[in-house]
């Protein structure tokens, strides 16, 4: 097994027809197993698009994406879905959960859809780790924002995925709750050796990562090992001044 969890090679993504918007321009990146990476950049820099392409949620216009040794470019929609539910976990900014299902049902949704028998002991451990032991029978609408995010993380962990993709996981949370969620993600990397790739605006969130990648105009403009929250903020501020926000987010 190689050390590379996700590899993005020459990936481009263009949206629209008559006046195409270039979201990603020939991006190369590799994400090592057992690391956490923060992808940052101003609005419209292409960071969300990069995440979607790397996670197999969206197809790049050009280039290839690999999860481990698997090449996603030639996979059918169905095969991609199966790959997502077995090898990838997701935590989104909001609307993570299906309102009709209880916390436990939401966590077990991927295994239920893949027809696998859930590993009860592992479920108990995951639930314990995210601190939701007493909430399993509740509906998402009865939980706070932080609790909802923790349910999403539990769902991402329960299938023991190789990679967990997070899109602004703390965007809707207060500082305190955000810190809890981020430590949880950090421990996933440190204890279980899983890989976390996280899109964020928040320099504090980025400071939990091993590596910070900054995008602007669909290109990687900075790639640095954990530089500390202050330097990140500085970098972003510089980009923000230079970068008029015109193109779309996502």
């Amino acid at each position, binding site marked *: 097994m190689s050390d590379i969890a996700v590899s993005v090679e020459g990936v481009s993504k263009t949206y629209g027809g008559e006046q195409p918007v270039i979201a990603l321009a020939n991006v190369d990146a590799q994400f090592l197993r057992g690391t956490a990476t923060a992808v940052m950049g101003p609005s419209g820099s292409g960071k*969300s698009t990069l995440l*979607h392409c790397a996670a197999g*949620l*969206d197809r790049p216009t050009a280039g290839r994406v690999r999860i481990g040794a698997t090449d996603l470019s030639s996979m059918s*929609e*169905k095969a991609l*879905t*199966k790959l*997502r*539910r077995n090898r990838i976990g*997701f935590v*989104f*900014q*909001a*609307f*993570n*959960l*299906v*309102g*009709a*299902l209880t916390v436990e*049902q939401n966590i077990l*949704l*991927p295994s*239920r*859809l*893949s027809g696998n028998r859930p590993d009860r002991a592992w479920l108990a451990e995951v639930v314990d780790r995210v601190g939701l032991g007493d909430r399993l029978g509740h509906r998402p*609408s009865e939980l706070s924002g932080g609790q909802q995010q923790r349910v999403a993380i539990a*769902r991402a962990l329960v299938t023991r995925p190789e990679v967990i993709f997070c*899109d602004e996981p703390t965007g809707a949370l207060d500082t305190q709750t955000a810190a809890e969620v981020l430590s949880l993600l950090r421990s996933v990397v440190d204890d279980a050796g899983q890989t976390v790739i996280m899109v964020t605006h928040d320099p504090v969130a980025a400071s939990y990562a091993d590596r910070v990648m900054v995008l602007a105009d669909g290109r990687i403009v900075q790639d640095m090992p954990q530089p500390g929250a202050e330097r990140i903020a500085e970098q972003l501020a510089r980009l923000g001044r230079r970068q008029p926000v015109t193109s779309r987010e*996502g």
Partner: protein
Amino acid sequence: MLGLAAQMLRFRKGTFVATFVALAAGVMILMTCGLLVESGLRYQGSPQRYAAAVAVVADRDRTIAGPEIFGETESTTVSLPEGGRVPETLVKAIAAVPGVASAVGDHSIAVTPVAAPGVPATGHGWGSAALAPYRMVSGTQPRTDGEVAVDARLAAGGKLQPGDATALVVGGTERKFRVSGVVDAVGPRAAVFFTDTQAARLDPNPGSFTAIGVLAAPGADKAAVVAAVRTAAVNAKTYVDGERGLVEQPEAVAARALTVQAGAAFGGYAAMIIIFVVAGTVGLSVRHRRRDLALLRAVAATPGQVRLMILGEVGLLSLLAAVVGVPAGLAATAWTRDQLVTRGFVPGTFELSGGLLSGLAVTVAVAVVALSSAWIAALRTTRIRPTEALGEAAVEPALGGKVRIVSGLVFLAGGVSLIGLTGATGGTTALGAATGMLYTFVLAVALLAPWINQAAAKLLTPVLRTVWGTSGYLAAANLRANARGMVAVLTALVLSVGFGGTVWFLQDNLQRQTVVQSHDGTLAQHALTGAAGLPATAAAKARKIPGVVAATGVRRTSVIIPNQLEAQAVAAQGIDPVGADQTLDLGVRSGSLTDLRASTVALSTTLADSAGWKLGDDARLWLGDGTPVTLRVVALYDRGWGFGDVTLDSETLTGHTATGLDDHVLIRTAPGADVTAGLTDLANAYPMSTVIGTDQLTGELAQDLAVSAWLNKMLIAVLVGYAVLAAANTLIMAALARARELSLLRLVGVTRGQVRRMVHAEQAGLLGVALVIGTAIAAITLSSVVHAVSGERIPYVPALGAAVILGGTIALALIATMLPIGRVLRTPPVQGIGLRE
């Protein structure tokens, strides 16, 4: 997946209640139609007078081959309107069949007992009493031609005993008889028995029987006897078991035809509406859950699994709907059956039977409709990108593909090309034509709705802004942005306005057309009508009255026309052409009624069009008793609705109608002539007859029509009601789905009143568009069908009806939107913003 589907159903009650209501009501309506058809098919009356016969031979229908279409010929079986006859000679042939003890010919002669005119009675020869068999209660059988045996009901009604003298009106003439005996009563009509020779003499069609009953010899093999009888009577039909009831009771045949036709026709229309409604609601419920579905896709579900889940939901709902709808349909059919019996459409012996088959068929049909629309909606969800789950706002998808706009335009063109349609000869045909055209237009609107909505929103923006200010500005923006989401709402509203406006008023127009034509076309001032029929001498006698200019005997019947698609029975009249131009004005377009003879015929222009006959052609048709005739077309006239589509010389009909009598005599008198005494004498000369003004004749016609239109109107009302229910359903669904959006508006500072005004403005815009389009469709459809029927371009629209339809739609839209919006506005916005849309 089914468990997940069930859980989704429980969670999103509002949306699913709407789909469920649409499905359950659809099942109920279809169940009623299906059960009517099934009961009709199973209904055979009950053999009573022929109970002892092993088989009954009669000639009651014609199977007529239609034209060859694509190398295939479809034949239609039409019941003979006057009932066919079997020749006397056939009795001998059947009696000679081995195993037959005897073959008994039966005459059925219309008889009105003067002693008890209210008791419907039929005369027979005594020989046929053996077929029941009847039991003598008192007295003896009729031995001389001056004697009759009567059935116990008649004896009770007329207080008759053996030995009493009594009078019977037979063939329009009163005759005296002596009661020889009383027999026990069976069958729906009272029986009067003459001697066999007297019965043969009184039969208006001598030399023939209405039916022949076959009595098997003791110990004979029944099946073998029946088979041999079939071979002996190849030109007639041999009825066994329950079918014997159909021969005995012509009412049973009519009841069967009525329930089967009405049930099938309305079942068809209902199925079309149900497709629209179910497809609309299912589509809407999927649309409202885009984000949920996108999340499922992102997290773990393959497109196939999402489709399966949606199908599972709809399948479960269809089952639930069947559980509620089928029993409700049974109850509704029972009510309909009682109404049909009370109003005299079907005899009291008509019972609902079966139900299992209908229930099963309806459940499957509705489930198939629901599942296929769910499948189509689900196919759309594969285009939901999983990434949609991640965005904050669900992006309203583009208006629709090229396929959609092209097929919409094709349907629109199809509807327009139907405008010139001709050839509506009957009420059902006209209704069918109107419905077909309507659906084409509504389908076009449904397909083009996104573009219609957007164009309307653009057009209405300045208006809404002027009237409602800021709220109007927001409303216009919403309408524009939500053009796709409002498709189901627009379609449902257009459907209910268009459908209500067309079919309801069409019925009014057809009724009115008949009455108006009959009124305008009757030149005579007086009419002699006889409950027991009038012999041909009545017209001749009327002509001799001083002051009478002309008198025309009119005989109502039906003939069978081999139309271009399928043979059907159409209303016809037989008239005495001498002086008919003084009493009747049929609105002759070409040719002349003076050429009407035994070998010629006059047709309404609509019938001539639909059958493909022109002036001077030879028309091949069948008289009411099934006799084929070829008649030259000598006149085409306009007033087919008032007088029947076929006008024949009475001579052509002689021996081919059941009674051989005229229904009424139209009498034209010279201006100023005093004919009162002469007319009174005339009425006195014929039993049970009176002279009335022709206005009264029209009045009675209108009443008859109102009764026969009852079933149509009731079924139409149910269908319109269903369309309205569907519209309300979609409106409520759409309103409830906006909780989040409205909360957001209130959070950013829009007051509750402004939100309400904004919704009002949207409603006004949407309703205005729907009403304009719906009214236009109704007007075009109605006008073109009425034009085909009557030649008039402007249909008759009762003001009250128009007000009910327009006002009702507006009230419905306001209530179905404002109540749920009111509820949404009562939740605190902070709570509302947390809700998913």
